[in-house]
């Protein structure tokens, strides 16, 4: 077993390191800490933040890849069939959910079904032919006929429910114990130092959200051992697995695109606003030109160009995963290169304003170099704008991926993504009877992420935007 670092993995972990650094600097500055406290004081923002971090957790788990070489000790026939699937690059998430990946059916099956969705021809011993709904290979095969599916699901719900209760209880104990340790075990101090209700974060909402999430995912996890909870697709793959795998694609496009876009917007925007003159003219010319080309056209052209390059140079890539990953990375770059103009314009205007303010004049009269002035006086006063723009852009980018994949210029068809799922569903919706669960799953997962991101960004904007405070 050896680690495989795909390009997007490296980038996303770099971003995580940057985020950890940012959190450390937030802890240092009291002013910023207060602002974040203020953001999280809204129960909705708190819940949204928890949902976002769960999504991020899935994306990170799915971003540790390794090459799995089957161990020679496995001898039973079952494990040898498994090892055929295990060839190639796997992620940590695949290892956690092995049954989802391996338990594939022949074709479509509805959520919690025990038989296939469409009938197929069958021959009995006598040679006569008749149409039957074949039983599934894995889904619902433990049922002996005594219980109906519904009863079985109800009984089996008890296990994840108990698990989530215990899990939340443990987290709660750790939380209490940590607060207790902070006062060095002095019980009286602990009660006296209890923050007033208005200084308290909305822990009730936080625990409720966490409980619901833990319950939902452990329910999915536990029941997926017995059923295909969200059904299977055309080639019999579990839809739940696809939807969960798509989290990485969505979150990565949202996060990494901003990583590409941010330096461009910051450097160009601040330079244009601070140096003015010909620098400003050149940068303004650049983004006006870029803005006047329709974004989809530019992206489609670039993606098609890249497809030609990839198919002409198939020797560059060791595996299909690497090829798909490079295509994802390329899409991220294209999206980043086309979406910096809005933020750049905003930063230019704000820099123009700040560079006229008197503390910048004072810094100039101290003989500070332009670089130092930008670093110490201008950038810190722009950060609220950057943060608001980033959080707002995130949901837009997740949706953009879906739209582009639907049009066919998005990620590689082999990459799991909500856009690809929706693209497939186009045909499934036209079938009779309709196959609805693929579209539904993609929609539900994406909707939750985008809604959480939007609610969170709304709160960030309310707190950080200085104009709204007045």
């Amino acid at each position, binding site marked *: 077993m050896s680690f495989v670092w795909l390009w997007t993995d490296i980038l996303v972990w770099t971003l995580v390191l940057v985020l950890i650094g940012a959190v450390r600097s937030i802890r240092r500055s009291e002013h910023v800490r207060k602002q974040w406290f203020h953001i999280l004081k809204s129960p909705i923002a708190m819940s949204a933040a928890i949902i976002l971090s769960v999504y991020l957790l899935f994306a990170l788990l799915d971003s540790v890849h390794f090459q799995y070489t089957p161990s020679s000790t496995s001898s039973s026939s079952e494990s040898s069939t498994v090892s055929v699937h295990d060839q190639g690059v796997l992620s940590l998430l695949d290892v956690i959910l092995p049954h989802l990946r391996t338990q594939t059916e022949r074709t479509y099956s509805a959520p919690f079904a025990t038989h296939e969705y469409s009938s197929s021809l069958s021959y009995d011993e006598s040679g006569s032919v008749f149409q039957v709904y074949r039983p599934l290979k894995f889904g619902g095969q433990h049922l002996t006929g005594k219980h109906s599916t519904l009863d079985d699901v109800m009984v089996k719900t008890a296990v994840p429910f108990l698990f989530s209760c215990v899990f939340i209880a443990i987290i709660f104990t750790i939380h209490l114990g940590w607060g207790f340790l902070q006062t060095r075990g002095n019980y009286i101090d602990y009660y006296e130092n209890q923050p007033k209700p208005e200084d308290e974060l909305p822990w009730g909402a936080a625990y409720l959200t966490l409980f619901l999430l833990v319950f939902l995912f452990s329910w999915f996890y536990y029941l997926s051992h017995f059923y295909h909870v969200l059904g299977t697709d055309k080639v019999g793959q579990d839809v739940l697995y696809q939807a969960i795998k798509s989290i990485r694609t969505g979150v990565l496009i949202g996060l990494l695109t901003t990583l590409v876009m941010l330096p461009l917007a910051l450097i160009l925007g601040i330079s244009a606003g601070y140096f003015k003159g010909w620098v400003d003219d050149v940068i303004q010319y650049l983004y006006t030109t870029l803005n006047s080309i329709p974004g989809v056209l530019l992206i489609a052209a670039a993606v098609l160009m890249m497809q030609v390059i990839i198919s002409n140079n198939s020797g560059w890539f060791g595996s299909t995963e690497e090829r798909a990953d490079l295509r994802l990375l390329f899409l991220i770059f294209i999206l980043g290169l086309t979406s910096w103009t809005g933020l750049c314009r905003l930063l230019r205007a704000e820099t123009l304003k700040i560079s006229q303010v008197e*503390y910048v004049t004072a810094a100039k009269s101290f003989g500070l170099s332009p670089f130092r002035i930008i670093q110490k006086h201008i950038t810190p006063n722009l950060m609220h704008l950057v943060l608001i723009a980033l959080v707002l852009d995130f949901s837009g980018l997740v949706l953009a991926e879906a739209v582009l994949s639907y049009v066919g210029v998005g990620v590689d068809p082999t990459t799991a993504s909500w856009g690809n799922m929706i693209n497939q569903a186009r045909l499934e919706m036209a079938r009779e009877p309709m196959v609805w669960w693929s579209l539904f799953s993609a929609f539900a997962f994406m909707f939750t992420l985008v809604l959480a991101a939007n609610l969170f960004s709304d709160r960030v904007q309310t707190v950080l935007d200085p104009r709204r405070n007045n």
Partner: protein
Amino acid sequence: MKKDILMKELTDQEASIVLSVQNLTVLVNDSPLINNISFSIRGGEIFALVGESGSGKSLTSLAIMRLLPEALRVTSGTILLDQQDLFQMPEFQMQKVRGKQIAMIFQEPMTSLNPVMKVGEQVAEVLRVHLKLSGSNAKNKVISLFDEVGIPEAKTRYDWYPHQLSGGQKQRVMIAMALACEPDVLIADEPTTALDVTIQAQVLKLLKEIRDKRGLSILFITHDMAVVNEMADHVAVMKQGEIVEQAEKHEFFRNPQHPYTQKLLKDAIPSHSFKPEIDSKTLLQLTDLKVHFPIKKGLFQRTVGYVKAVDGVTLEIKKGQTLALVGESGSGKSTIGQAILKLVDSTSGSVCFSNIPKKGGEDQTENPLEQSIDLTHLTEKQMKPFRKKVQVIFQDPFSALNPRMTIDEIIREGMVSLHVGSGNKVDQDQRIEELLEQVGLLPEHKKRYPHEFSGGQRQRIGIARALAVEPELIICDEPTSALDVTVRAQVLSLLEDLQQKYQLSFLFITHDLSIIPAIAHQVAVMKEGKIVEQGSVEQVMHSPKHDYTKALLSSAPKIFSDFI
């Protein structure tokens, strides 16, 4: 003639009370902003409400108009207008009172007018709504109002937009709008604070004329004691939501009762003892300095002309002395300061800085000879040694400090950049604490952020920042115009102490003539980029030569005129 009317009204005890405020209390979150105030205004009287910022004067006027923000609650009190209780009125009736019986003019004429509507139309709209006048009638009425408030060529100006008018004319339009429905009471909330001194004098005169002509009562809100003296018949002083003293004007100025009033008056009275002229060496010499900004037009940014912000200025600042540079807004005074700092490029002329060796300083061995260096031709790198000699203090204490930096970071910045003092952080911390104490702040303040301080304290931090690099010349760009009277007096005396202690020179840029005797040794009067008169303070203030200086001096409101 005017004085006679005034005297007659004052002696007339039977004069009817037009507006009466009784026991008014306004709360926000259960803490009082206005605490149980009572006063009454008679017909044809100018009632001045004086106080520092935050004392509740403007809130009182908003309470009278019933326009208080929703977070504030009136808990007790009555306001009677012609014997009608305003608080008992339903809202639709109150709307008729606003504009028709009570009208208001604001401080900022630039933001009180709608920029995309013709000024005449804006006034006519009021007439149409309140008096139901039709098109041409309304227009004629507006033109006659414009004539009354002294707007020249009223017929043409009717079709102008606000940006085409000057600040004084905009304020006149506001007054015309307020007078349109012939109100009984006019509330003027700092109507001249944003205006230059000559225009202020015109607007004040206009308000008095209108009062005499129409028998209008005016509630005049201001912080300026000199304006009170010019305008008021009756004075009330507010402090922290309470009226501490109420008196008839003569009585008020002759015999103030409350200690706060006494302090306010003392701080507001300019000192009449001029500073002795000391003959010392020239520190900075400006010779025929010109700063022209090109006006560019067209596709290829061709230069079609120049704005002559500074046009041939010759000035001399002496070691350890203060030169006051006086002028109205747009006269180019601030541009001179920026040109000295090389923040704008000078077109021609020279800024010569004399390198006077410090007594016993290390500089003595390096520069034994006194030399004079022209700053205008230096590169940024060559300029760096002079950056620590010339520093600057700004007008607006709220934008002068970076809100994201702590006080010690702000003060340290110059020391690090210009290599002043020790590079050791511990020594620097000690120096920062010293500086904070020197400007009257506490060493504990250094870890705080600017928003935790009041305006006066911020101005002190700005002074500490300038002092940190041990400058020889400090350019003070209107350092006191955003401050209250008492705070202003404190900051001025701080500057004077520092001057005596360190032999600092100040270039004091101001439009406020009243503070000049207290601070300056020399005065230069500036108009349209040129110096029209300069000399010692005594000479310029007492026997001005140039017409413009005379106009400036005569239009400045005086706190002790001969009113008897």
